[in-house]
C-alpha cells in the first residue's frame, strides 16, 4: 500500500511539474533566449555606496545616508524577454529595506518601484509577468537598499533572467516558501500568496492530489491483476498532500517566530510596546496619560485615520476613553465638560488655534481650550 501510494505521489508530482512548465510557462522567446543580466554583467554600476566582490558575492557598503543603489542595465530591453528576476541577499541583523525600480518608455520615462512582499531574500525568484508594470521596453533596472549608514549588505545575486523551466519552478517554490510578516488582514483571511505569486498553494496541492489520484487509477488499470483499489491509498495520498501544503505554512510560521523573537525577546512589557508596530503611538500616549489629572477624567480621541485613532484610544485605557470613529460627529457642546481632554491624532481635520485658545471641532464650532501637548503625532488640549 505504501509503495503504490508513494509511486502515485511521485508520478503525480512529475506530471504536475511537466504540466506547469509546458502549459503555464511565462511568455518569452525561448528559441534564442536573451542573455542574463546580473551584478556580474559588464555594465553594472554602483551609484550609492561602495561595492567589493568577494567569492562571487557583492558586498555593498551603504553610504553615510544609509543608501546603496546598484544599476543593472542602461540599454532598453524587452520586458517579456526577462520573465524572471532573482534576488539573493544574505540575512543580516539590521534587516535593510530593499526595493527594485526600473523605467518604462514614455516621455518623460515612467519610473516604477516594486517592494518585494516576501521577506525571504536568501534566494527570491520573482515571475516578473505577475508585476503589472513590468511591460514594454524597460531599462535602468536598479536595486535600492536602505539601511544603516556604513552597513555592509552581502548580495549573492541580483539579476534578470530569460525563461527556463528550472527558473519557473524556482519562482513557484519562492512563492510557496515566501515569508510575509503578519499584517492587519491576517485575522480575516490567509490567501497563502503574495500579490505577485503565480499560483495559489491550495490550487497547486489540489492539482497534485488530482494527478496523484489519476496516476493511481492508471496504475490500477495497468496492474489490475496484482493491485486492487483501496480507499486507504486514497486517504494516504490526501494526507500526504495536506502535509506538503502544511509544511510550507509551518515554514512561514517558523520564519515569523524568528522575526518575532528578534523583535521582542528579552524585553519587558514597556520595551515591547516601544519597538512594536505602534511604537510611536504608544510613546505619544505615554506622554498623554499623566495629563489626565484624575482617573475619571474623560478623554476624547479623534483622528481621520481609523487605525491610529483607535490604537491610541486603546493604549489610553484604563482611563475613561471615548473614541470618535472617523466621520462621526463630535459630541454636542452641552455634553462636554470643563476639564475633558481632547486627543487629536494626526491626521485630523480639527485645529487648535493657539492665539485664540480655541479648538475648531467643525467649520462652525469652536471650543475654549488650553494646549497641553503638541508634537508630530498629535495634539492634546483641555477644555476650559
Amino acid at each position, binding site marked *: 500500500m505504501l509503495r503504490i501510494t508513494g509511486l502515485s505521489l511521485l508520478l503525480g508530482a512529475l506530471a504536475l511539474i511537466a504540466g506547469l512548465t509546458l502549459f503555464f510557462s511565462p511568455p518569452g522567446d525561448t528559441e534564442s533566449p536573451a542573455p542574463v543580466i546580473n551584478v556580474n554583467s559588464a555594465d553594472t554600476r554602483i551609484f550609492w555606496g561602495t561595492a567589493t566582490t568577494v567569492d562571487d558575492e557583492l558586498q555593498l557598503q551603504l553610504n553615510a545616508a544609509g543608501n546603496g543603489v546598484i544599476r543593472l542595465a542602461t540599454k532598453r530591453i524587452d520586458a517579456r524577454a526577462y520573465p524572471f528576476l532573482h534576488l539573493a541577499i544574505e540575512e543580516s541583523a539590521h534587516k535593510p529595506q530593499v526595493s527594485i525600480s526600473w523605467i518604462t518608455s514614455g516621455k518623460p520615462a515612467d519610473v516604477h518601484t516594486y517592494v518585494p512582499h516576501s521577506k525571504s531574500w536568501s534566494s527570491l525568484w520573482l515571475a516578473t509577468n505577475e508585476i503589472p508594470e513590468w511591460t514594454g521596453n524597460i531599462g535602468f533596472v536598479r536595486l535600492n537598499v536602505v539601511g544603516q549608514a556604513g552597513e555592509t549588505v552581502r548580495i549573492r545575486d541580483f539579476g534578470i533572467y530569460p525563461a527556463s523551466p528550472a527558473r519557473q519552478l524556482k519562482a513557484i517554490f519562492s512563492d510557496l516558501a515566501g515569508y510575509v510578516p503578519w499584517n492587519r488582514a491576517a485575522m480575516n483571511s490567509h*490567501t497563502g500568496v503574495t500579490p505577485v505569486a503565480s499560483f495559489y498553494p491550495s*490550487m497547486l496541492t489540489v492539482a497534485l*492530489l488530482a494527478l496523484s489520484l489519476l496516476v493511481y487509477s492508471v496504475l490500477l488499470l495497468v496492474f489490475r491483476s496484482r493491485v486492487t483499489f483501496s480507499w486507504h491509498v486514497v486517504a494516504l495520498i490526501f494526507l500526504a498532500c495536506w502535509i506538503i501544503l502544511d509544511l510550507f*505554512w*509551518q515554514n512561514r*510560521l517558523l520564519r515569523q517566530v524568528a522575526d518575532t523573537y528578534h523583535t521582542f525577546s528579552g524585553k519587558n512589557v514597556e520595551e515591547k510596546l516601544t519597538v512594536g508596530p505602534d511604537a510611536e503611538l504608544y510613546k505619544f500616549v505615554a506622554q498623554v496619560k499623566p495629563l489626565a489629572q484624575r482617573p475619571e477624567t474623560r478623554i476624547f480621541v479623534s483622528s481621520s485615520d481609523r487605525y491610529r485613532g483607535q490604537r491610541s484610544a486603546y493604549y489610553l485605557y484604563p482611563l475613561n*476613553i471615548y473614541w470618535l470613529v472617523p466621520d462621526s460627529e463630535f*459630541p454636542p457642546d452641552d455634553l462636554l465638560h470643563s476639564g475633558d481632554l481632547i486627543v487629536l491624532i494626526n491626521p485630523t481635520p480639527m485645529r487648535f488655534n493657539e492665539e485664540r485658545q480655541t479648538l475648531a471641532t467643525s467649520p462652525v464650532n469652536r471650543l475654549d481650550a488650553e494646549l497641553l501637548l503638541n508634537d508630530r503625532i498629535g495634539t492634546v488640549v483641555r477644555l476650559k
Partner: protein
Amino acid sequence: MEAVHIIITLATALALPVLLGGLWLSIFVPAQGAGRTALVWGCGTLIGLLLIPQLMLALDALDIPLTFRSIASLAGALVALALVVLLFTGARARFSGALAKSYADLPASHKALFIFLLSLIILRMSSLGLEVFLRPLYPWDATMHWATKARVWYEYNSIAPFVDNAQWLELGGKGVFTDVHANYPATVPLLQVWMSLAMAQWNPSLMNLPWLLCFMALGAAFYGQLRVSGVGPVISMAFTYFLLSMPLLNIHVALAGYADLFLGAAYCGALMAFHNWASTRQRWQAVLALVFALSCPLIKNEGVIWSLTFIPALIFTLFSRGDAAKPYVLFALLLVLLWLLLPPDLQITVQIAAHGTTTQWLLAPPALEIAGHALNDMIFEFHAEGLVGIVQSIWLHDNWHLMGYLLLAVLPLGILMPGALVRTYLELTIALGTAVGAFLFLFLFTGFGVAASEFTGVGRIGIQLAPGLLYLAALLCSELLTRGGVRATSGTSLPAAWRPAPFGAPAATITN
C-alpha cells in the same frame, strides 16, 4: 525572583481551569473507554476556560473584588471538592492508561504515522506558543472591543459597566466606560483579566496564553470524541492534525485576542458531545453538549444562532423522522409568520439592574450583532459577490488548507452511503446543516455579502463552524475506510465501553 514568581502564578492560572474542568468531568465520564484521557482533559479544559469567567461574574455580582486570591480560592475549592469526590469514587481507575493500550495494539507502521502526526502537532503548538508568549496584543478587534474591557476591569478589580457611546455621553461618563461594542459578552476579556490578576500586571503578551490552552484543549477534545465515536487512533490523530494545522485557526492563536477560536471550540464541543450522546445516550455527553451549547452566546453574540441549531437536531433525535418533520415544519412556518406580521423594529428587552446601572439584553433577532454589524440594519436580497467571496475563501485561499475539498469529496460519499447522513449522523447533519444554512443566508442574502467579498467576516465566522464540519468529515471518512466503500453496514463501530444503552436505561456504569 520576579520571573520565578510570574512563572509560578502563570502556571497556577493556566492549571486551575484545566483541573477545574478536567477533574469534574472525570467524575462523570466512565472509567474505561478509548480516548478517555484526551476527552476528559480536552473537554475539561474547555469547560474550565469557560467556567473561570463565570466564577468572576458571580464574585462581582456578590460585590467581592476580583483578585487572583478571591477567584483562585473559589476555583481551588471547586477543584478540591472534585478531588474529594474522585477519591471516594475510585480515582485510580479513572486515570488508567486506556490511550496507551489502544496505541500499543497498533501495527508498527500505524504507530510511526501516529507519532509523526503528533510531532507535527507539537511543532505547531510550539511555534504558536512562542508567538503568543512574545508578541503583545496585535489584532484590530482585540484592541477595539475585547481588551479595552479587560484593561479597565483589571485596573478596577471589578466588572465596571460598559455602555454605548450615546449612553456614556448622557451619563457624563460617571461610573461607566465605553468602547465600540459595549454589549459584547464578558467571557473572553475576563480570561485576560484572570491572567493579568495572576501576574499582578497588565501584560499584553502573557494574558493571551488561554488562547493557546484553548487550541490545545480543542485538539485533545476533538481526538477524544472521535475515539468515543469509534474512529481508530490513526484516523483520529490525522483529523486532529488537520484541525490544528488550519492556517486561519493557527493565526487566531498566534495573534490571540479574538473570541472566534473559543466560540468555534465551544460549538464543536457541543456538536461532538451531542452526536455521541445521540449514539450512546450517555447522560454525561448530553450534559456536556448542553454546557457547551449554552456557553456559545456567552462568548460572542452570534453564538446564540449556533446554540439554536441544536433545537431541530434534538427534535429529529428524540422523535422518529416523520414525527420530527411536523414540529420542524410548524416551527419554520411560525418563524415566517412572525417575520411577516411583526413590525421589523420590534425588540424584546430584558433589563437587569445592578451596581446602579442597567444592563439591557435584547432578545429579538434584530438586536443581534455579528462582527460589529446589527442584523436589524440588514436588507434581505441576494448578494452574488458574497457567493464569490465564500467560494474563494473556502476553496481558493489557504485558510483551511484542503478542508473545502475534503468536504466536497466526503459529503456526496456520505449521501451515497446508505444510512450515514440520514440515520447514523442525522443529528450532526441537521445541526451543521442548519448552521451552514444560517452562514450562507448571512453572506448571500444580507449586507454581510460585503464581509464575504472583502474576506473579513467570512473567515472569522468560518472558524466557528470549521471544527464541527471537520468532525463530520472525520466520521464519514472513518465510515468509508471501515466499510471499504459506500456499501451498507450495520452502523458505527463504537468501542465496547461507549456502546449505546437502550433509551431510558441508566447512564453508562462507572467502573470503580
